[in-house]
């Protein structure tokens, strides 16, 4: 008797979502199987990596992370261009760190001006990531949304406390929202339902489960993502069939183990290799759990993860 390899019966599919507009628009999602289970289904769009750019010069980055960008790190426009032209970035994430009321507290007008310059300077789709302060994010993201009508920018993080305001901006000016919930599958679903009720279209939602770095809650994040993909693909849960985006670089490069210099703790080994590996292990784990977009920092990490994606998706 012939042996049949047991296969999972998939009844659902992840929605295909387009970021950006024009010929550099990027499609994500569309999978009809668990991540890289290509013997069971299809992943028409492989996971994408978005390179992160900060909207002001970061002062607390690890040396290894600054090094590739040291010529552009004070200029978000040049920085974004370098990511696209030199490193071949298909997506850019502008981290709107300057608007933090507990930090630089840049005004919405000023922050939006910088963001618009970055958006205009690159042809690839742009993701805008605020500081999870509901009032400030709403103010800044709505202004940018208005100035860039129809560009299908991705606006996040959108939480239960500000989904109405930012969601309305996304509807009016035709952008996407990044629905963000605090590592909780039930709350993730609830926010998607609320956005749907508000009138945000099915093609306008990305899901951020909240990313924990290696050693800092990674297990919680990927467990929630696995549950999410299982419900979406095997339980036909329409409210969860959205692509997942993970803000990896910010999380992995802020932890102590990524920042410590080698001489501060020699047993931790080479600081650059260490920081890159922490970013890669985190990114790889999240890919296996179902991430569709990874926001990453170090060009060498990105090269490595791209190769992994290619290897995992090649026929042999």
């Amino acid at each position: 008797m012939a042996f049949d390899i047991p296969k999972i019966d998939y009844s659902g599919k992840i929605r295909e979502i387009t970021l950006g507009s024009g010929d550099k628009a990027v499609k994500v999602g569309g999978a009809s199987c668990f991540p890289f289970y290509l013997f069971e289904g299809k992943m028409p769009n492989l996971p994408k990596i978005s390179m992160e750019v900060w909207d002001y010069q970061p002062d607390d980055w690890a040396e290894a992370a600054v090094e590739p960008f040291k010529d552009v790190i004070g200029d978000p426009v040049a920085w974004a261009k370098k990511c696209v032209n030199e490193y071949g970035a298909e997506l850019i994430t502008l981290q709107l760190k300057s608007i933090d009321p507990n930090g630089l507290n840049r005004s919405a007008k000023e922050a939006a001006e910088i963001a618009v310059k970055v958006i205009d300077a690159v042809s690839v789709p742009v993701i805008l990531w605020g500081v999870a302060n509901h009032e400030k994010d709403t103010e800044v993201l709505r202004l940018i949304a208005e100035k860039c009508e129809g560009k299908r920018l991705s606006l996040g993080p959108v939480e239960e406390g500000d989904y109405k305001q930012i969601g309305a901006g996304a509807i009016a000016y035709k952008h996407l929202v990044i629905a963000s919930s605090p590592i909780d599958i039930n709350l993730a679903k609830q926010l998607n339902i609320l956005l749907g009720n508000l009138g945000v279209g099915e093609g306008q939602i990305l899901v951020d489960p909240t990313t924990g770095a290696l050693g800092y809650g990674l297990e919680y994040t990927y467990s929630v993502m696995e549950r999410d993909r299982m419900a979406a693909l095997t339980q036909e849960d329409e409210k969860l069939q959205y692509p997942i985006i993970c803000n990896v670089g910010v999380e992995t490069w802020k932890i102590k183990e990524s920042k410590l210099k080698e001489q501060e703790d020699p047993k931790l080994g080479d600081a650059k290799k260490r920081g890159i590996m922490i970013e890669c292990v985190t990114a790889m784990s999240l890919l296996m759990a179902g991430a569709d977009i990874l926001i990453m920092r170090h060009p060498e990490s990105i090269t490595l993860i791209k190769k992994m994606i290619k290897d995992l998706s090649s026929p042999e």
Partner: protein
Amino acid sequence: MAKFVRIGENLNVMSKILGPAMKERNAGPIQDMAKKETEKGVDFVDLNIGPARKDGAAMMEWVVNTVQAVTNLPLALDTTNLDAMEAGLKVAKNSPLINSVTLQSDRFEAGLKLAAKYKASVVAVLWSDTGMPRDANERAMHIVEFVQKASELGIPNEKIFIDPIVSPISVEINQVKACVECMGMLQDIAPGCKSTVGLSNISNGAPEELRPWLNITYLIMLIKNGLYSAIVDSFDDRLKSFVTGERQNIVNLVNKMLDGEKVDMNSLNDEEKKFAKSVKVLTGETLFSNSWLES
């Protein structure tokens, strides 16, 4: 169907009226509540005096005597203070229920000894030194341990009310499923044991006005798996109607779904749909969210 036993939860120190009345030994409000609960047809009156660190023994003795003066119902003595428990057991006339004893090593044996000494029934909360059991198997393990120890002390299974611990659906669906699964295993593991649950914990965290849908559905699911009693609001007439055979259409619908029969949602009326959706989230067939009744 055997009669479902309701343990009325309303005589509680947390109440803004009854708490002070217990402390001031003001019998009026307490007897009033006991009478009203009795009129509502509950089978036990739970007397929750809380941890009662100070004055616990005297308070429990007084509350028991005060309540016994107006009702003949058996009492559930609800405190973590074992001295207070014993003081209540000494004066309780009508085969009382100790609520509760856990498997935590510092109180497990002492609690069981009280049950043996006063020939009382006892609620066995399956909570051990390692906290909450992780699945149905750990629950089963705790049941075996509890029943064995009780048996050594001469407490028959019929006097044990196993509480498999209901936890909120918004926290972890696998625990919701494990609790039901454990209930279904109980008579095989410990024949003759009774059971009880703190039902409303299932809907902790859900929108207040929607909580009854989860509570009632979960109750029907647990009863199908053999649940003997629950600690409930004595004045919840709607909930009561589901355990007295008045709402058999809904009970049948839930049972049918649990038996794996396909139910055509379009054939159901609005109320039935809500119960059907609640079954789906409580069995893990669909993922719970606060809008589970809408989507």
